[in-house]
């Protein structure tokens, strides 16, 4: 059993932070790796990237957006409650080295995933420009942490309620134009990664993205997480989750993420009705 020792709500209660006791995983985990969590007996196995780890305290931190039944169920867990299963660390860690200027772009909860990578890039001696975006100011997460983790932080909102009015891709283009960027890391909703990759491609900047296909085991045994990279099938849980952003078939990934949308809706609605009752 894996006890929750801290819980925070952000982004109007839609994004939740859980710090969880998992000493073995905390000791091993590196930036870019993820865990699979299962709340209870009947629960689904849900992959979430570790936003932070504390090896001394023996805890890991995940930050997730409530999008369906399983994440809504996670949200009902309070400090002191336990996840039945937490498995990890899974996936390959981010390759971090000193390359010069690195631009880290995050959208939505992707910022949570981006945060430890940004920090590691800066610790490796890179000049790190971070660009984060959200639909509006209230939905923006981890601004202070991202400021601390980077050398230079730019913020955008779709509605202009804060920072630059517009998409992260606009700011990214500006940065690519002005700076000599050696590496880009893009993490967020699939469309964001798709369009931001097109920008970095224009400037021939090596680009990493972190993919989030639907998973079951997370150990390369089911093939459910397969993605097409440069025309070849890869398993995101063991070959990734990070890949060359210029090689990813984003349209296939977007379609595959919809595989269960009807069943998920049914499951979520039943859960919400029960919650309210």
């Amino acid at each position, binding site marked *: 059993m894996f006890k929750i020792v801290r819980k925070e709500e952000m982004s109007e209660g839609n994004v939740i932070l859980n710090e969880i006791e998992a000493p*073995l*995983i905390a000791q*091993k985990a590196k930036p870019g790796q993820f865990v699979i969590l*299962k709340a209870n007996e*009947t*629960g*689904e*196995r849900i992959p979430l990237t570790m936003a932070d780890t504390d090896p001394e305290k023996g805890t890991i931190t995940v930050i997730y957006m409530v999008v369906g*039944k*399983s994440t809504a*169920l996670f949200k009902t867990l309070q400090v002191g409650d336990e996840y*039945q*299963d*937490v*498995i*990890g*660390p*899974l996936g390959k860690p981010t390759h971090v080295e000193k390359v010069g200027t690195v631009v880290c772009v995050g959208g939505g909860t992707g910022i949570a995933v981006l945060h430890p990578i940004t920090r590691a890039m800066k610790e490796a001696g890179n000049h790190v420009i971070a660009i984060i975006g959200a639909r509006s100011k209230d939905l923006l997460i981890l601004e202070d942490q991202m400021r601390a983790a980077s050398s230079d932080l730019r913020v955008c909102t779709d509605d202009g309620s804060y920072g630059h009015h517009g998409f992260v891709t606009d700011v990214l283009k500006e940065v690519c134009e002005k700076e000599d960027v050696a590496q880009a890391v893009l993490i967020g909703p699939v469309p964001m990664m798709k369009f931001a990759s097109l920008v970095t491609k224009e400037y021939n900047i090596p680009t990493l993205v972190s993919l989030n296909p639907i998973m*079951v*085991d997370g*150990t*390369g*045994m*089911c*093939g*459910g997480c*397969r993605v*097409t990279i440069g025309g070849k*099938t890869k398993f995101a849980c*063991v070959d990734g989750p990070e890949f060359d952003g210029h090689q990813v078939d984003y349209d*296939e990934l977007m*379609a*595959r993420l*919809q*595989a*269960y949308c009807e*069943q*998920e809706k*049914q*499951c979520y609605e*039943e859960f919400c009705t029960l919650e309210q009752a």
Partner: protein
Amino acid sequence: MAEEKEGKKKKTPRQSMPEQGPAVRAKNFDEVPFGYDEETAMLEASRCLQCKKPSCVEGCPVSVDIPAFIAKIKEGDFTGACRKLWERNALPAVCGRVCPQELQCEGKCIVGKKGDPVAIGNLERFAADWERHHGTGELPPIEEPTGKRVAVVGSGPSGLTVAGDLILKGHDVTVFEAFHLPGGVLIYGIPEFRLPKEIVGQEVNFLVRQGVNLETNQVVGRTVTIDELFEQGYDAVYLGVGAGLPRFLNIPGENLIGIYSANEYLTRSNLMKAYLFPKYDTPIIKGKNVVTLGAGNVAMDSARTALRLGAESSKIVYRRSRQEVPARSAEVHHAEEEGVEFHFLTNPVRFFGDEKNRLTGMECLQMELGEPDDSGRRRPLPIKGSEFKLECDLAIIAVGAGANPLLTQSTEGLKLNNWGYIITDPKTGKTSKKGVWAGGDIVTGAATVILAMGAGRQAADSIDDYLKWGW
């Protein structure tokens, strides 16, 4: 003479097991056969000739003393029968249900030369079930603690066998399992209607009661490495991690929604209980027209699961002919009875999808048998211009499994063959790395439960020797 003739006439026929009718069972996940009652079991046991040189035993990979356990059933000593089985086989309730008996013990039974062989598998299952339901649950005696620690990686039949053998010898045994539940293929692969999960749970519980430590959610190679296990003070490590890498066909359209590896399909249904969705949260695609590629046990399990999840048609597409079907004959028979259609000498070419990337059909090619190849099997060759379309909204790829590299690649000094399987000494299960043994599917490639257990037993003996005398 006359007497003997008379005796022949009265010969007891092989006792069949009562089972759910095909129409009913194709709609539920309950076990298909009900099992023998005591009288039927004793009657079937009386068919055994108690051969002095029993050929059946030669057919059993772990040399179960078949005439001896059958004799006990005949006498009505069912506990005694089960104890006899346990001497060679730690999981008789499982093997009685899943061994390919027609190729092993029953295939060699002398009675089978002129008629139907003794139903050894059914009797094995009966004895084990009887003991589970009526036995005292008394634990076998455990030797004095040796102070030695053994780590078993993987809780499939192979790992469980090693754990069971070594705990009895007084060693301190811990099983590490990547999934949240123990049992390996017995839990995530083989469906409830063929092997009730309660049986696997009880077998594991039996080991835990004897003192085996069970650590689930431990992906060895990630959560902890083998070298770290030695640093933590383990004296020996057994790798029974199975052949957990799905094989795909590598044909166009294979990443459409509605195409699963059998591993994913069966894991969703069995381990995650997607067949009980939405009571359980994991969803599964329920196809109307389902095609399963392949014809092994895994394919039969997939095609029959599809029927139970509501498919209107469930087809098996196989590139070779009926003679080459590798599945247990009982499963093929059950699948046919339930309405699974078989398309032999048929090879998939490509998949088609709609604008939402959902599977709508596939193209196949008719094959014919050519000249025999090196293995003596007639090689299937495509017939030019024989392409045809098969409509389907769910396809399950069950064409075999490979070696999962997650653990082996994170372990230094472990010799692998060209396909990524671990190389071991065939007599002891020793790997090229000191203190490390391996067995089961990760050594042989996808094989059978009983072979994985046999390898486990062999390795356990060798590990015990090592812990007493050295490498």
